[in-house]
């Protein structure tokens, strides 16, 4: 007879000294953990609820400006620095960690309309309605005392005076050219007092200009004649233009720059004009600020927003920026304040222990796994909206439904094929020019 029975010595399965870690033994046998799916589902549900409980995105407001904040730009050299310009011509540099003004530039005579920094982060460019572009030296942020700046910023390094008021400015991502928008689109060099190139397409004012981060020579502008144009610095004339009938229709449109005949995606959710948009440094998300007093965060490939931020005191949002580490969002609004938000509303700030991190990853995974179930979905999707936004959204929905219904009826009562079905992605495009 051969016999063996389970026999465990206590010493082998417990720790020797009280300073030691407890011994952990694993056995992954499915029979030992029954009702796995129910447990996972419960965890997903609890994780969704906890996410809602911890969703406190607002960190603080930064006040100091005495008029509406009109534009902002990040400081590429300093994670915690941000520049803001206001309608009274004031330009400030903020320290996000302390939420205080570090430096105040004398600014412009009229409103500041655009701000941008050079690639190396040494120079700040601002433009305004006083027909000037000013070049400023960015003070070096001292680690020790952020309140005290040792350099004199009371005078701009250069002032470029030109014929018309400026609406926007943007610096090339790689190089030392910058573009301004106004009656025309001008390309400037920092070392020249006059623009090195001028583009004009139509008579209307251009209101915004942005350089392509990947292709340093490409830039896009939008104008008040409902057009979006793409320019190439290597060519003497504008490259392409698109005219849309989407003036302040509350939507954001994502285009493939090579195919302008159809939007890739329409991001719907705002209930009033979208004033500013900024991509996250990761490129997976973007933040929008709107005239409806809310800030929304959209996934780059999603039609609806992931998050909406609002407070009682925040007025029309004129400018929004993602921070350089993609973990914060800054909004500037009509009420003279800059507001600092977390990019993920319920994210725990500060250093996480590896165990905490693993736990959060696990909870995210189960939440993702059960996201399609009604209860989890309902909790994850729920957002409290301010009453005017809620009502306006409902109204918009009914209007769109009515429009669609009308279209359907019109189609039903006309000859088959005479009114083709157009996807919303194409519907707003009027014309594409080469």
């Amino acid at each position, binding site marked *: 007879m051969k016999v*063996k029975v389970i026999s465990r*010595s*206590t010493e082998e399965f417990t720790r020797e000294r009280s300073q030691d870690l*407890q011994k952990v*033994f694993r*056995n992954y046998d499915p029979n*030992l953990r029954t009702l796995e799916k*129910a*447990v996972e589902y419960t965890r997903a549900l609890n994780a969704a609820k906890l996410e809602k409980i911890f969703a406190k995105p607002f960190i603080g407001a930064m006040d100091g400006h005495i008029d509406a904040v009109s534009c902002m730009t990040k400081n590429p050299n300093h994670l915690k620095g941000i520049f803001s310009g206001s309608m009274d011509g004031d330009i400030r540099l903020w320290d996000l960690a302390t939420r205080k003004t570090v430096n105040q530039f004398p600014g412009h005579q009229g409103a500041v309309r655009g701000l941008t920094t050079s690639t190396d982060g040494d120079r700040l460019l601002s433009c305004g309605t006083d027909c000037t572009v000013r070049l400023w030296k960015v003070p070096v942020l001292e680690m020790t005392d952020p309140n005290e700046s040792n350099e004199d910023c009371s005078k701009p390094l250069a002032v470029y005076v030109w014929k018309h008021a400026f609406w926007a400015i943007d610096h090339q991502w790689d190089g030392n050219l910058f573009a301004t928008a106004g009656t025309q689109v001008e390309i400037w060099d920092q070392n020249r007092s006059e623009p090195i190139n001028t583009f004009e397409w139509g008579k209307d004012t251009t209101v915004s200009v942005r350089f392509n981060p990947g292709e340093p020579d490409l830039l896009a502008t939008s104008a008040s004649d409902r057009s979006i144009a793409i320019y190439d610095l290597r060519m003497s004339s504008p490259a392409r233009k698109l005219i849309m009938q989407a003036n302040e229709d509350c939507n954001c449109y994502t285009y493939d720059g090579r195919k302008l005949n159809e939007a890739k995606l329409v991001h719907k959710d705002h209930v009033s004009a979208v004033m500013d948009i900024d991509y996250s440094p990761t490129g997976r998300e973007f933040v929008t600020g709107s005239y409806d007093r809310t800030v929304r965060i959209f996934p780059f490939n999603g039609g609806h927003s992931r998050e909406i931020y609002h407070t009682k005191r925040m007025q029309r949002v004129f400018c929004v920026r993602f921070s350089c580490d993609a973990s914060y969002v800054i909004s500037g609004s009509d009420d003279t304040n800059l507001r600092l938000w977390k990019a993920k509303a319920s994210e725990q700030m500060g250093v996480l222990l590896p165990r905490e991190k693993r736990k959060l990853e696990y909870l995210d995974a189960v939440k993702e796994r059960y996201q399609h179930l009604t209860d989890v979905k309902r909790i994850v999707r729920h957002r409290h909206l301010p009453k005017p936004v809620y009502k306006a959204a409902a109204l918009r929905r009914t209007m769109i439904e009515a429009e669609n219904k009308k279209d359907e009826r019109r189609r039903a009562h006309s000859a088959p094929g005479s009114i083709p079905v157009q996807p919303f992605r194409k519907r707003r495009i009027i014309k594409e020019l080469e």
Partner: protein
Amino acid sequence: MISATQQKIADELDVRARKYLRGDGANLETLRDKKLKGQLANREKLYGQSAKAAAKAEKWLLPSEEGYLEPEGLEKTWMIKQESIVREVDISSFRKPFDMILPDLGPYKLEYTPSGRYMVMGGRKGHLAMIDMLNMNLIKEFQVRETVRDVVFLQNEQFFAVAQKKYPYIYNWRGTEIHCLKEHGAALKLQFLDKHFLLASVNKSAQLHYQDVSTGVIVANYRTGLGRTDVMQVNPYNAVIGLGHSAGKVTMWKPTSAKPLVTMLCHFGPVTDIAFHKGGHLMATTGMDHKIKLWDIRKFGLLHSYTAHAQMLDFSQKGMLALGNKSHVHIWRDSGNQDYKQYMSHEMVKGYQLAKVCFRPYEDVLGIGHSMGLSSIIVPGAGEPNFDSWVANPYETKKQRREKEVHALIDKLQPETIMLEPTKIGTLKPRRTKANPTKKEIQEEMETAIDAAKNITFKKKTKGRNKPSKRTKKKEEGVFKAKRPFLEQKTEERPFKRQKEEVELPKALQRFSRKKA
């Protein structure tokens, strides 16, 4: 080049990994959505990897091995006595079998915690005791001076519930009465669903109560309507409660339905005990009709029926079946294909009446409660040799216990999650089939029905009923009968159409209506 041994190991790992895959993967071929298909394929790959990692961990990392009892020569396992086993085993296992003689207050019911560390026992005449089985330490012993019908541990060894003469009570480990659960009435049997924190009881008037012990809410109270019973067992796989009744029926219950989920006629005579296999597919029942039956509870079919006598049953973690009958204990073991054969047997002193047999989790030990006290015997190969610290830890410290209780409360399952197939949670309802079959489908269905009617062969009958004319007539009738429902369907559709055509026009306009051809 892979050597033969490497190949062998890889094959073995594949076999082991199958357990961790929890069934076959989804069929992605039928999907048309390419994006979804890619995502799911990725997911499946991950599942495969984790199953493989688990299989590797099982093969190489587990600290202990299963017990066994192997006969040599002409020996038979069931002839081997406990004394000879005890002589062979090591010194720590030597202390495990014992006989505790408590002649006055028996017969004793007993129950282990899920980790197998603690045992609570209750004598019929009111003797309650809790013992730490690891170092054989009596934690508390007291008398309630009242009939005790059943004892059960709650979420950990801190609390246990006792079914007493009039009501069940909850005591803590010090023996302090915490609660008296009057709503349950005179409970005959108690069970605790540890993931749901539900205490279930069946009382003298055959009512099934579920009470949430974390909040104190009575979750459900159902009349079984099948007479008094004290046969109740939880299926650990899905937390469904099985009740055995005196008319030979076994019913299965969940707290969210007033009617039993399943009613099975298992025995011709009262059911005396039921037991569920840990895997959730196997149920053993025993009845007064001298039968022990094994059921596949996925399809509710009988697997095997044995003629043997048993009053109580219990499945071990490794699937051994203990049968208690008067003063004999038999252990059966799966001999392949779920056919259970005798493995061991043990005789108590003559005249001892068994009251409960209960395998100790994570040990090769069977606890036996009887009229003269308590015994335990060694059953090699019964228990799971490797425990998981996060599931049930016999060496749990106070801090770990507290931590675990909090986590169990956070992950407490709602009563709605109890269902016959718990893997259904998180899946979608299958898409409904088309409501109206097409004309072609109806035609095909009719043709098959007619063919079936034509091909019927009749029995040979006498007294002129086997005449060819009669037979053809009968066949024609059959065909007509098969056709009829389909034809009726058609006629039902027709008058609707006719109505549409016969729109009453005003007299003046009738001359313009198109004439029928």
